[in-house]
């Protein structure tokens, strides 16, 4: 498939994630939108690694060009898992203190 299709799909998913962060007020939905944006970037990285591999295979027969992109996706998933565990603990703490997960209640710095 042309690489532009993958770029458009990833951009659409990323912008849906941005719209979710901007419009929703439930902290858990905002967090899930961030996960959606991370997945859009992962899909784009894998597509680009296969594009790079296709270009390098045309030059020489046996190679492993493009491995770095997939390793990078692996590390993005690792960091996302660690981020989710800490972020959900923070949301649980916020619910325990404010009895709500509405982010509009978090305006204590304003006044």
């Amino acid at each position, binding site marked *: *498939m*042309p*690489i*532009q*299709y993958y*770029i*458009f*799909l990833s*951009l*659409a*998913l990323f*912008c*849906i994630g*941005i*719209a979710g962060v*901007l*419009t*929703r*007020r*439930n902290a*858990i*939905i905002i*967090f*899930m*939108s961030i*996960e*959606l944006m991370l*997945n859009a970037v*992962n*899909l784009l990285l*894998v597509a680009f*690694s*296969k*594009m790079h*591999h*296709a270009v390098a*295979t045309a030059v020489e027969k046996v190679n*492993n060009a*493009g*491995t770095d992109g*997939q390793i990078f996706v*692996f*590390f993005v*998933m*690792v*960091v*996302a*898992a*660690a*981020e989710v*565990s800490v972020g*959900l*603990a923070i*949301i*649980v*703490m916020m*619910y*325990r203190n404010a009895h709500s*997960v*509405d982010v509009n209640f978090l305006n204590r710095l304003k006044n």
Partner: protein
Amino acid sequence: MNAIQILFWFLSALALVSALMVLLSKNPVHSVLWLVGVFFAISGHYILLNAQFIAIVNLIVYAGAIMVLFLFVIMLMNLNKDTEPQKNIWMKLAGAISAGCFLMILVSLIRQAPELQAKTAMMKEGSIGLISNLGKALFSTYVVPFEISSILFLSAMVGAVVIGKKD
């Protein structure tokens, strides 16, 4: 239109519809289930790109572990009802319009980029996504980041326990 193209369009439509339903559904449990649908569609894309290791890791880590954690927190806080009274429609509209403008700018930019014309991603062949190649790279070139990520997990674990502790 061959089978790969049909699968590509089907998985893309599934991912986009599920991602929109994550935002539009009022119940947070439904949002989590739609997000699991997005992850399955993206894993299908990885399999189409012959990135088998990433596809399986995506299913196990995201759909299997992270989404269960989300569901667990939602049910722990008893949020599975239609809450979130929407008062301000203008904020919603402004968010949607700004995300749409961002999407339009990036799409028009990509359409004009001369480096990306006539480039294709290799489908269903190429062996870089197999676990033998990725395992060799992970344990030789990238062994130091791999070990550092274990320390990251340990610190995240300690941090989650410390934050969640009732004092």
